[in-house]
């Protein structure tokens, strides 16, 4: 168990860096879920739990520096506990949330206490010491790595046993209820997306996407392609009004 906990913790550290630096998004649950699954020897559950958590976090993105519930720790804890406690991947969501919220607060704190660094930089700039500024800037990554590693390691290494006996003592309808709740949870991610994206002139597309998927077998990529085609049509439609186009015509 120690090895697994350590590996997961190291991965959490890497993902924690990627969340603010690099931003390749290997820190999203769809990737971390799979990696945690690999480490714990249950690839399938990892993949599915990761995908489920991904959907919940869909609208929870950092806008203008505001931190949503932490996607790195949420994704990793959710998947790890779902596998270790042998639960339905959908239960992962209910497990992930408390961790994610706690870390959300911690990161906000971190960004606050990191402010004095700017004044150090001011002084280095005065002396045009670019090397020092380089190191000072990059130092933040170390902090994130250590922070995430520790946060991920402790509960997995020390908490699983307790959680496991707790879960066993719970009535089955409770765990099944959590699974039902997990299935409903993506509604929150989507609704959050809607609060930011939905303007009245775009309602048409929300409706169309819903109806097309409900009444056909199209995949999401197929839907995205169709939507792209429509967006292209719309774009050129707005660009070249008929009158103008006609003027350039032949004969």
């Amino acid at each position, binding site marked *: 168990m120690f090895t697994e906990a350590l590996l997961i913790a190291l991965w959490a550290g890497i993902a924690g860096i990627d969340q603010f630096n690099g931003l390749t998004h290997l820190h999203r649950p769809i990737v971390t879920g799979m990696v945690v699954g690999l480490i714990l020897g249950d690839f399938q559950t990892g993949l599915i739990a990761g995908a489920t958590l991904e959907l919940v976090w869909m609208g929870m993105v950092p806008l203008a520096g505001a931190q949503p519930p932490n996607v790195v720790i949420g994704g990793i804890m959710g998947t790890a506990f779902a596998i270790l406690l042998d639960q339905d991947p959908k239960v992962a969501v209910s497990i992930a949330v408390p961790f994610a919220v706690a870390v959300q607060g911690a990161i906000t704190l971190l960004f606050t206490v990191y402010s004095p660094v700017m004044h150090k930089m001011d002084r280095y700039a005065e002396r045009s010491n670019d090397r020092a500024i380089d190191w000072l800037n990059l130092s933040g990554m170390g902090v994130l790595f250590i922070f995430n590693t520790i946060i991920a390691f402790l509960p997995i290494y020390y908490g699983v046993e307790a959680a496991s006996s707790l879960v066993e003592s719970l009535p089955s309808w409770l765990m099944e209820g959590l699974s039902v709740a997990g299935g409903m949870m993506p509604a929150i991610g989507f609704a959050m997306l809607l609060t930011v994206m*939905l303007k009245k002139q775009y309602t048409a597309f929300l409706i169309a996407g819903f109806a097309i998927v409900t009444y056909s077998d199209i995949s999401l990529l197929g839907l995205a392609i169709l939507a792209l085609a429509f967006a292209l049509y719309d774009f050129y439609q707005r660009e070249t009004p008929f009158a103008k186009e006609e003027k350039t015509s032949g004969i």
Partner: protein
Amino acid sequence: MAFEEQTNTRTANADQPEKRLSRTDLMRMAVRSFFLQSSFNYERMQAGGWLYSLMPALKKIYRKREELSDAMKRHLDFFNTHPFLVTPILGIVAAMEESREKPDAIRGIKVGMMGPLGGVGDAVAWLTLLPITAGIGASIAMEGSLAGPIVFLLTFNAIHLMLRFGGIFYGYNTGVKALQKLKSGTQAISRAASIVGLTVVGGMIASYVKLSTPAKIPIGKESFEIQKELLDKVMPNLLPLTYTLLIFFLLKKGYSPLKLIGITVLIGVAGKYFGVL
């Protein structure tokens, strides 16, 4: 607007040696931009990472110590934009520094661009590109296929890298002229992104929100399955849609996502307990 004057200023400096920055310099700036948020903090946000990313240009342009120190201090002001779209700003600012534009002009452009590009970037990258690629990846992963995360990482980063590396050259080569193009392009791109994004969100509501009722009403010996014989007849996915819209209106009314997660857990558990979910 001040734009015209700046362009004039620039032309006036035509005796200055222009285009001293090499392809490599620009590439290095783009690579450094990956660490834009390494010293992120709530006092000046990405200011440290901005200076760090701009450094290769400043060092090339300002050979004298005092000049360099001056420039570095100027670039430690508050800065915040979308991390994928910082490179066009880096490019323009580098071009302006190179032709020795007035510090105020440079600051103006920098501040004038960071806001709109932050907004567009959030709309396009965080709220459209991410949900679509992650949604598609999740739809593949849900079937247990490794292709899910891979497709996600490849498609997401294809666009990510294109923005970063395309942006720096675009910004540097087009200079302040880029601003006007950005202005008209931004609107069209946001609209197209919204069309695709919202269509896919609509589709995801239908395929990912799982909510149905096993409740039956007994009629004599037979029983009337509410889900199959009523709700599905009216419209499949009626409950998922309704629940999503409900959450949406509660969010609009000011409920926090956290509270709604709590409520959802309660509904799920209670629904199971009473056999209606």
